[in-house]
Structure formats: C-alpha cells, structure tokens
C-alpha cells in the first residue's frame, strides 16, 4: 500500500467523522426492518403446504434520509422464498422502492416511487399492504402545490409496481381540494366546515387484439386512453358530518368486466352524528363496473389504480372474520348503519363504571342487471336502486362493560349471511350465528391476562364427496388466553376447533418480547388463514403448520 493512498484514506475518515459529528452534513437516517420466517409441514386437513426449502423468509428494510425539506429513501426487499400465501412472482431480492423528495409548505415534489390517494381513493390510490403482498406504488413524478392556505393541487404520472417490475400502462392524474373555511374570509369563523374536491385520472395502454363476442373474426376497437373523474365533499356542522364522493369512469373494456363498453360509476355517502357518549352513522354505496386497472388483461389483486372499500364493519375477532366480505368492484349496492351509546356511570344500566352498547348492521346486494350482449357491447343495463344477488348481511350487538377496576368484559352477538359467490365460488348463502366473550383482567399494574371465547354456529358444512370444500364451514369453538407478565413479554395459547360439520383443529402457542421498537415473536402450531390479533398488534396471516417467527424494529 503506498503512502498516498493511506493518506487519502485517513483524510476521508477524518472528513467523514467531522462532517458526521458536527452535523455539517446535517440530516437524519431513520428506518425500519422486518423479517418474517416460516417453517411448515404439509397438513391436508387445514390446507397447509410443505416447505421443501425448510424455511420461507420475507425480509425488508426501509432506510430514510431526511435533511430539512429534502428526503431520500430506499427499500430493499428479499423473498427467499416468499411466505405461504404470497405470490411466487415475488421470489427474489433487490431494491424495490426508491425516491428523492423535496417538501416545503407550498410545494412538494417526489421523484421515484411514491404512494398517493385522491379523496377516498375511488379513482386513485397507490398504497402498500405488506402482509397481503400488495404494493401498487407508482414510479414516476408526484407534485403537490399549496399556492394559498386551503387549496391543494396534486399532479402525478407514473407506472405501477407489479411484483418485481412495472405494468405497461401509464397512469396520469390531477386533483384539487379546497377547504372553503381557509379560502373564504367570511367562512373562517363559521361553524360549518366545507371541503370540496375533484380529481381526474387517465391511463394509457397500447393496443392489443381482443376478439369481439358477436363476430370472433373481428377484433375490438379498444380505447387506448381511459379517463375516470370524481367529485367529493366533506361537510362538518357541529355534531353532524356528511361525506360523499361520486366517481365516473369512461369506456374501459377489460378482462375484469368481460370486455364490455359500459361506463363505470360509483357513489359513496356517509352521514354521521356524534357527541359525548353517542355516535351514529349511516353509509350507502353504489358501485357499477368500477374495476380500474392499468392493464386490461390483469386479473387478481395487482395493478388496481383505484380502491373501493367494503362497507361492512371491520372486526378483528377470528370468529367474526371467518367470512370477510370483499368489495365487488363489478357491481354492488350496500348500506350500513351503526349506533353506539354509553350508559353513564351511576345509572341503572351504566352501573359503577358505565356501559357501552353498539348496534351495527349492513346489507350488500349485487346490481339488478339485464344482459344486453357480450364482449364489444355495452354488456348490460342496470338501475341505481335495483337489487340483484344477495351477497352479505350482518347485524350485531356489542356490549362492553367494566365490571371492576381490574375486569373489563366485552360480549358480542352477530348474525351473518355470507354468499361465497363473492369469492368466485358457486352461489350459496351461509347463515351464521356468532357469539364472542372477551375478558381483560388487569391483575396488577404491570401484569395482565386476556381471555377470549368464541362460538360460530353455521348451516355451512364441509363434505369433500359432495364438493363442499370450504375449510371455514361448520360450527366452531375458539379459545384464547394471553398472559402479559410485565409489559415486555407475552405468552399466548389458542385453539380453533371445527367441532361439527367442519374440518380442522388449530392449536397454537406463541411467545413474544418487545423492547422499545424491537419486537420478536415466535409461534408454533397450526394457523388458519385470516386476520390475527395477538400480543398487542394485528396482522394478516396465511395457513401454515409449524414454526413461525417475526422480527421487527425501527430506528
């Protein structure tokens, strides 16, 4: 090694040390890391597969550098191989997400990968759900302008992420939102808060050859550019709120709608009233042909440009999420209502600590359609209010009662109707009665126990010989106990058992340790697919049979 080189090295080290320590470089490095591993043996009863590579591993690290208004970030992802339930196309590793951004009070610019949402997302939502393996981040440029207080204008263009690549379609969008109370001098002191917004999204995709249904010799004249527009309002007056968004989409023949030319539209209205001890809401939703993807031929969950949420209440108890409802973007009409009331302490029903009661109900139907043709035609006609196939209904009563300083009990009864047609299966209608008992026992300041007992009575059944292969079917009992010896550790035991007309028994044990932002969890047992809440956090898990571990940290 020559002297010149070692001198250079010494200088580099010195400069770096001084720059770092003195903050000449300034800025901060933050990030988060997550590692999920899974070992599984085949279990045909619960549908778990064998893992020939012994261990499946999902790993990711986000590193973010921030210096004043400037920031840059990157994410490394590795799937070696992806956990059960993740698409095999994720297999591999590399830089999955990167960007540089400048954000100040009046202007924000992001170049690279970004997430974004216009309004409630009915025409555009780029987001990520790492447990579902869903990431439709855009790669491109995103600009936000706030020329005056109360006005936000967003403009963006890019391509959508799909696994390790990007879709061919281009996505362009512009959105404006005005907060009238900030913009209009006379409204600044008003009790009425009004926000108005409007957005437009256009996608471009090259031509391809799709045969017409009427004459297979001829190909469809496909629109290369498809536009979608939405208007929305948010009104807030004292105890009342009204939120509404209406979206309309141009002709967008795709594999999702059978290459029909009917325009799409959707309306969502939410009316709410709330004050201390009481909240009530009524929601209605109409969706007609609103699948909006940047690729005509893409089925499945990827390359969606928009996001239309399900209207029914989202629970986290396993008995109540056995049959989760997913929005039918092709068409649905739904309503949901909820009233939550607190009986004050000291009253007959309130007792010493008060009692909370929540009533919730929702019902969702397909559209009442009349078929008028196949690919290359309008497809069907439908009315706004007509009801077609019954998809889902639920009604629940929830009572939460603090029994003493140390004991809190929650009890839920839910009646549910679920049509497996919404998951692409044969139409049917399951009728379920669900009962949940949940007890938190705070033994002392840092020591607590959590018990859950759940029951599902269903007219669905599992019978392979007759083609009934839904592993959620039948009657279930579920039990769960979690022990928190202090605030760092937890140990839990659980079992879910289909005792009648069903199949499967899912015992499992888990232990976890949290210190600051670092959390390590080990589990062993059988895992039913679904939303799992344990040891303080909730997450989505696939079916497995064996050991799992999860390590997360952030800094």
């Amino acid at each position, binding site marked *: 090694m020559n002297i010149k080189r070692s001198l250079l090295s010494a200088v580099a080290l010195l400069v770096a040390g001084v720059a*770092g*320590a003195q903050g000449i470089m300034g800025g901060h*490095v933050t990030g988060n890391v997550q590692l999920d591993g899974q070992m599984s043996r085949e279990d045909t009863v619960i549908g778990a597969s064998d893992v020939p590579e012994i261990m499946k591993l999902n790993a990711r690290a986000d590193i973010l550098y921030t210096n004043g208004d400037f920031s840059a970030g990157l994410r490394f992802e590795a799937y070696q191989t992806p956990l059960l339930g993740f698409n095999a196309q994720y297999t591999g590793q590399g830089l999955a997400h990167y960007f540089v951004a400048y954000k100040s009070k009046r202007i924000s610019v992001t170049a690279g990968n970004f997430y974004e949402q216009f309004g409630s997302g009915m025409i555009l939502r780029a987001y990520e759900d790492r447990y579902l393996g869903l990431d439709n981040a855009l790669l491109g440029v995103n600009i936000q302008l706030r020329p005056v207080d109360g006005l936000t204008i967003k403009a963006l263009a890019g391509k959508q992420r799909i696994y390790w690549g990007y879709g061919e379609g281009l996505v362009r969008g512009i959105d404006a939102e005005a907060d009238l109370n900030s913009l209009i001098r006379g409204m600044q002191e008003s009790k009425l808060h009004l926000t108005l917004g409007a957005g437009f999204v256009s996608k471009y995709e090259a031509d391809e050859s799709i045969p017409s249904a009427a004459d297979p010799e001829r190909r469809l004249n496909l629109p290369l550019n498809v536009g979608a527009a939405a208007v929305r309002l948010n009104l807030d007056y004292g105890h009342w709120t009204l939120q509404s968004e209406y979206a309309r989409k141009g002709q967008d023949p795709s594999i999702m709608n059978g290459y029909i030319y009917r325009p799409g539209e959707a309306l969502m209205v939410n009316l709410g009233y709330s004050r201390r001890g009481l909240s009530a809401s009524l929601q209605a939703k109409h969706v007609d042909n609103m699948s909006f993807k940047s690729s005509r031929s893409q089925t499945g969950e990827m390359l969606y440009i928009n996001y239309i949420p399900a209207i029914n209440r989202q*629970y986290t108890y396993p008995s109540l999420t056995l049959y989760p409802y997913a929005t039918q973007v092709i068409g649905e009409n739904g309503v949901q209502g*909820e009233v939550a009331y607190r009986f004050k302490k000291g009253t007959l029903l309130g007792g010493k600590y008060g009692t909370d009661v929540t009533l919730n109900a929702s019902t969702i139907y397909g559209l009442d359609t009349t078929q008028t043709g196949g690919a290359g035609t309008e497809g069907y006609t439908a009315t706004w209010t007509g009801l077609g196939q019954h998809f889902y209904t639920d009604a629940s009563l929830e009572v939460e009662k603090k029994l003493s300083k140390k004991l809190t009990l929650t009890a839920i009864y839910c009646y549910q109707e679920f049509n497996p047609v919404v998951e692409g299966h044969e139409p049917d209608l399951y009728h379920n009665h669900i009962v949940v008992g949940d007890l938190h026992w705070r033994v002392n300041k840092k020591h607590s126990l959590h018990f859950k007992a759940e029951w599902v009575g269903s007219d669905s059944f599992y019978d392979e010989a007759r083609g009934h292969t839904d592993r959620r079917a039948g009657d279930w009992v579920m039990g769960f106990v979690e022990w928190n010896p202090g605030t760092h550790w937890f140990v839990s035991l659980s079992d879910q058992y289909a005792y009648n007309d069903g199949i499967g028994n899912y015992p499992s044990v888990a232990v976890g340790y949290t210190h600051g932002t670092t959390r390590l969890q080990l589990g062993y047992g059988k895992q039913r697919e679904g939303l799992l809440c344990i040891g303080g956090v909730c997450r989505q898990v696939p079916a497995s049979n064996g050991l799992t571990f999860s390590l997360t940290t952030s800094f």
Partner: protein
Amino acid sequence: MKRITLFLALLVMGTGLMAQNAKLPDNVTLRTLDGKSVQSSAIQNDGRPVIISFWATWCGPCMLELKTIREIYDEWVEETGVKMVIVSIDDARTAARVKGVTEKQGWSDTGDDEFQHYYEVYLDSNRDFATALNIGQDPPHTFVINGQGEIVWQHKGYQPGAEEEVIEQVRALLK
C-alpha cells in the same frame, strides 16, 4: 482497503448522524376531524412534550391503550403539561368511523365538560405520516417528542401497564 475505508467512513458519518435525535417531520399533510388539511408542523405544544400515538378503530390494543390513558389523562396534563396527539391510520373503509369513536369515547373535545383535557386527533388515511416515521405496518406505535420537536422515545405495541413507561419518559424530559 479502499472499500474498507469507504465503509468505515460511512460508518463514522452514520454514527454522527444518528447521535442526534431525529426531528418530527413538519411537512406531511394530515387531516383534522372536520376535514381540513394541515401540515404536521401543527403538532406542537408550546415547548412542552407531546405524545403521539398511531392507532386505528379496528385495532383492539390501540383502543385499549387510548381508553386506559383517557382515564388518567387529565392528571397527566396537570402534572406534566403533556399533550396527547392521536393519529388514525384508518383507510377509506373505516376513516368515517374515527370522528364518532373519538367523540363518543371522550377523546376529542365536543364542548362538554366531562373532562378537562382532550386528545388532538388527526387522520393519516394513506399512511404518509406513518411511513415518514417508519412505524411499519402494525399499530399501535407511540412516540414521545420533546419541547424542541425531537423524537426522544418510541415504542411498538401496547400491553397493559405500558402507559406508565410513556409518562415516565415525559417526566424524565421535565427533569
């Protein structure tokens, strides 16, 4: 050798960067309960500490944490002057429930006088703020911010009793 030097240089520099506490991002857009857009620079407490808790209406442990703190929050404020800011990551499916939940639970101020002090509530529907703060996917995630707007402590998850650690961190800032 060149590589080793480069690595060491980056390491030394990195250690220097991380020695200081990261500032709370001030340029992320959040939404208030009445639908207004505000910048995250609005989160401050006149030089006193702030607790920020990320939560969602569907997250049991989050609800338990916020209910537990509600019962002792007036005492916390009177003792330390701390302000509790709760940021909902409910997406379009459940965001409309946030106002009802916070008003019914006595977390946000509705003008009655049941409590002395209330949480400040923001919505972060597409997780812009959550991403900027690296909370990962799972709520709850709790931060303690000092009077200079620096993140001095953070914690993932909630188990009963953890609220004592939060207020201990706030008390430590006042010493």
